[in-house]
């Protein structure tokens, strides 16, 4: 699970082009300045690309924080 979080963190840093951002399981979009709706879309597409997966809209909407995202990804495997 820590590995998934790490990967997500790396993808997010890539999306916003900022190596200093650290995502934690409890991080939400409100906690990070750059995490606006535009970057949210970019972020999700990048995650899907990385894990070669497609999330349903319902799943995406159910995510309350980074931890939920990690759990969704873990279920893919």
């Amino acid at each position: 699970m820590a590995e998934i979080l790490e990967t997500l963190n790396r993808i997010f840093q890539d999306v916003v082009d900022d190596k200093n951002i650290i995502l934690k399981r409890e991080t939400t979009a409100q906690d990070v300045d750059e995490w606006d709706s535009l970057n949210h879309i970019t972020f999700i597409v990048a995650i899907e690309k990385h894990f070669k997966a497609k999330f349903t809209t319902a799943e995406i909407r159910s995510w309350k924080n980074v931890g939920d995202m990690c759990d969704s990804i873990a279920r893919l495997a």
Partner: protein
Amino acid sequence: MRFLELKKNLKKDFSGFKKVKIALLGDSATQHLTQAIRGYGYEAGFDLEIFEADYDQIDRQILYSFSELYQSRPEYVILFQSVQKLKKKFYNTDISQRNLFAQDEAKRFGGLLAELNKNIQGVKIILANFMELNDSVFGQYANKTNMSFLYQIRHLNCELMELALKTKNLSICDIASLTSAFGQAAAIDNRNHIYADMAFSLDFLPYIAKGTIDIVQAVSGASRKCLILDLDNTLWGGIIGDDGVENIQVGDLEQGKAFTELQYWARELERRGIMLAICSKNDGDIAKIPFEKHPDMVLTLDDIAIFVANWDSKVDNIKKIKSFLNISYDSIVFIDDNPYERGVVRHHLPEITVPDLPEDPADYLPFLCGLNLFETTAYTLDDRKRTAYFQQELKREITQSAYTDEREFLKSLGMTCEIDPFSTFNIPRATQLLQRSNQFNLRTIRYTEEDLQHFSTSDVHLSWTFSVHDQFGSYGLISVVIGRIDGEELFIDTWVMSCRVLKRGVENLALNEIVNGAQRRGARRVRGEYTSTPKNGLVKDHYRNLDFTDAGYGQWTLDVASYKPREHFISTTKIGDA
């Protein structure tokens, strides 16, 4: 390029890049598209300032003359309407009107363009056409009824082409062909379309961005003019020096087909006005044998502006080709199957475009076509004659070497020049010259056809176009001068000349005409200005060489009364006065 790479460009340093103001109007969520376009601009050396209109405001922004669009004073307006919104509009159109849907939409676009032209002088418009989406209401029968959406989209795309034919400052960003090459299914991200109203997937945005930037680049005068080709394993399979003419592969059999297809493409480019040059490590005579003897060769020596085959380095040979054709490195594409040669050329001549040709010759042509290397904004009949010019030029050089005296050589050429003011006949070619000339261009103002039309009827402007001919052939329209009368002064607003006629005396002839015009209009003084650009160092001393007086700050003046006509060996014919 991928979307994320383009996005990363946004944080890079744009200083020193050419600033261009763009307004983007769309009826879907266009924020990511804006990021992609600005990011792609970085790749092409543009610092694009993009005004992105609020969501779905195309009509309001254009029809309301105090809108933010007009306040942003854009040089380019990009209209980006999505096929999804078009579909909605089509479905809401009364059945009885649907057969006219495309025509009505085209008319609507025509009206929007007219409004843009009215409100922004000299604006350039980029209009996205439509993905040809079959909504599966009629199945393939959609092709057999004008009541289908597919029929109306295709018709609309044709109507937009017609509109572009008639509207000089309109370019089409060809979404229809881009999506069909990319794949419609991948070009749309259903989830982001439904929930975020994004017309296209993030993966596809770089392609639209490239399509847009390609147009901006071509419009701002940077287009590619020359294709330099290697021979062995690039234009034919095998090695002519080792295999012999009967064993190289070209024609309809096996691998040969790939090379033949590439040759057909190159020949079409030549006919469009791209100059072809050969640069090969070969024995010069042997390298020409396939062109002369092989029955399946598509290209002939007549298609080649300059043929260089020897054992020198390709870098040196390309320098030679470049100076003979008098073009800049950034207008050259070099194609070679050998990665080593490509690397060396890329290293020493970084401005040249050197595509990394795929290994399999079967992939050569599709790969090159995918790069869209030869975007342009105009096509004139003159373009087709370009190769012939250089072949004549080669004959002139041979003649020149027979003369030790420059004046005797010039006399021997038997030059004639037709001098005309702007007219509907010469304005397209004159505009093209203004767009393309970088070196012999004193102020580098890229006027449009509309501007030239305006000058042709303006009381204060004088215009001259010069078309030169000699015993070896025609150079075509090779110089344009625009003068503006300002009281007792004639200001040389624009002076461009094709480098084809450098050192032929055309500048002298032109100045005689300019001074004549000044005299006729009662001006006592001619003023010229040199505005330096990275490419026009050639004419830095232009006015000094013509005996103008340095007035400082790039300004040069010439007294009309004391002017002595300059010597040249060109006889002139005139249609009308400027």
